[in-house]
């Protein structure tokens, strides 16, 4: 008996494995009759040809236009990169060189010297920016998505009004709320603290809007089954919904990062040791033409970080934007 069982077991396993493999294969194989497939392919091809019913000349003109404007768009950025590596005599050269001839790292070492002699150690500005960016980004991601989940998946009383307000808030420039914001922060005693920069960004509405739109297609069955298993709403949001909306999370992070990284915060913060990186760097610029090279080095550092982040997350951002439509 035991012997039989032993031989039977692996064979059964092999069978199931085989079965599974077959099943998988049969899923990949088109089950339609051959003639139908063939005719469909022919039809598809002919339609495809018809779809590309466009003139070669039109294509050419449009793509020349595209590449020209692409070059125009990227030229200033290229200039920053080149200037960052130019020695000072090459920056002030007539006739000018667009591209660097003798690349050096002088500008960066100059930057080090300038920052070494500043009133507050440079690492302090850097720390401020990193802290504000991280807290603001993570805070916005958690708080906005926590609010987006009920709005997207349940009919909460008042939800319509809230979404209406959020949509309206996308429509006007942020300068409208600038002065009352200052007054409100002042009442709370938050002027001259990190919170003065972080809190308004956490409350920004674009992130909430995008997150809510992205959550709408999450299947309700998933949430219900989690609820039957006894999960609380917060647990469902954190364990079920959040992993599903990763592209939107990444988008929120990028958008907020972009806003906070470039913020100089000088309207809300007066204490020198609380100021941010981009403020410190703009002070370098004000020292005059001799700092032109250093300035380019600074600009290069400032633009590299967000651009690299965008390169990594591009497809996620576009996935998110696919749901951004507004009625």
């Amino acid at each position, binding site marked *: 008996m035991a012997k039989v069982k032993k031989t039977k077991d692996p064979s059964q396993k092999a069978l199931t494995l085989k079965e599974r493999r077959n099943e998988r294969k049969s899923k990949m194989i088109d089950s339609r009759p051959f003639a139908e497939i063939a005719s469909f392919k022919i039809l598809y091809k002919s*339609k495809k040809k018809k*779809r590309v*019913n*466009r003139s070669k000349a039109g294509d050419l003109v449009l793509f020349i236009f*595209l590449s020209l*404007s*692409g070059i125009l*768009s990227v030229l*200033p*950025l290229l200039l920053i990169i080149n*200037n960052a590596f130019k020695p000072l005599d090459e*920056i*002030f050269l*007539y*006739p*000018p060189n667009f591209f660097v001839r003798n690349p050096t790292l002088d500008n960066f070492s100059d930057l080090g010297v300038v920052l070494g002699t500043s009133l507050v150690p440079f690492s302090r500005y850097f720390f401020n920016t990193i802290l504000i960016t991280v807290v603001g980004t993570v805070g916005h991601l958690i708080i906005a998505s926590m*609010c987006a*989940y*009920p709005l997207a998946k349940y009919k*909460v009383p*008042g939800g319509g009004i809230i979404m209406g*307000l959020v949509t309206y*808030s*996308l*429509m*006007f*420039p*942020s*300068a*409208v*709320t*600038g*002065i*009352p914001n200052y007054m*409100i922060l002042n009442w709370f005693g938050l002027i001259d603290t990190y919170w003065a920069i972080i*809190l308004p960004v*956490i*409350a920004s509405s*674009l992130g*909430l809007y995008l997150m809510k739109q992205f959550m709408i297609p999450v299947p309700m069955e998933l949430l219900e089954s989690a609820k039957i298993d006894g999960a*609380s*709403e917060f647990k469902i*949001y954190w364990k079920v919904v959040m992993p599903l909306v990763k592209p939107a999370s990444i988008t929120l992070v990028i958008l907020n990062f*972009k806003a906070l990284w470039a913020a100089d915060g000088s*309207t809300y913060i007066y204490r020198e040791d609380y100021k941010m990186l981009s403020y410190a*760097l703009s002070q370098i610029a004000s020292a005059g033409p001799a700092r032109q090279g250093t*300035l*380019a080095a600074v*600009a290069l550092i*400032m*633009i590299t970080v967000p*651009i690299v982040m*965008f390169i990594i997350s*591009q*497809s996620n951002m576009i996935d998110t*934007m*696919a749901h*951004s*439509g*507004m009625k």
Partner: protein
Amino acid sequence: MNDNNVSTSIKKPSLWSRFRAWRIKKSIEIDHWSRKKPFRRKMYLNRSLYAMMAPYLIMFTCFTVAPVVMSFMLGFTYFNMLEAPRWVGWQNYIDLFLNDPIFITAIKNTLIIALITGPLGYIMAFVFAWLINELPQKLRAIITLVFYAPSIAGGAITIWALIFASDIYGYANAYLTDWGIIHEPITWLQNATYILPIVIIVQLWMSLGVNFLSLIAGLKGIDRNQYEAGAVDGIKNRWQELWYITLPNMKSILIFAAVIQISGALGVGAVTTALAGFPSVAYAGHTIVNHLQDYGSIRYEMGYASAIATILFFSAILLNRLIRRIIRKVGS
């Protein structure tokens, strides 16, 4: 002693258990209270959802809803942050339109910038997204980056100050002199005739932002089968395809992109400050936002500044409604 202790502990429950008992009692009370009206009941049953929404909603109210209401109300007062606001009625608005020539200049500049960069930036974003859509995946990613990079690279604006520097070492001057177009350097950003065009160029350069990405996504999301069906139905060229299939299919995305574009175009202010300084020469680059900053954060005339903010708010909302109405008609 020991017995006594036990008995007291039974008589007097601990703070925690008293709190729990209180909470249960309270929740039963609220439960009864909520039964009286259906809306109340619904809110009570969804209380865990409201708890999740609360942090954002509180902050949103503090930093978006309340400021709009406040600036609307402060617009009717004289307020300098030191004394209590004094009601002046429509005086701020009358002053703005009748006694403040700089505000009229600011409106004019803002309108010029918005009317050029708004529609042009929007069309540019759409055309680029549309052309990119037909490219293979890798190339598309690279070109998307090329167009989107200026708007995400916040520090890049300094390079324009160098390009349009007023001496011979500014790149615009140097190249134009080198090619023999001009004979002496032009003081671009100190010359009232050139400030506005330069601001418009830079603004356009930076305008392919979130709206551009959403347009790309919208175009990508259109079902390919529709084009095939359209080709069968007699659509001849790409323009017809655009008008009859593409645009109607992405109306909602078009509206979203327009909303972002409008608030960007009306909110121009940081660019003019970074390029032409504050205030710019002869107020040639002075926008409504600059005027608002002038009165709000320099002169501390908060009532007056709030009136400007209110005007900006209502013009943005009105413009949005108008543009939405137009876009809804597209392709029908």
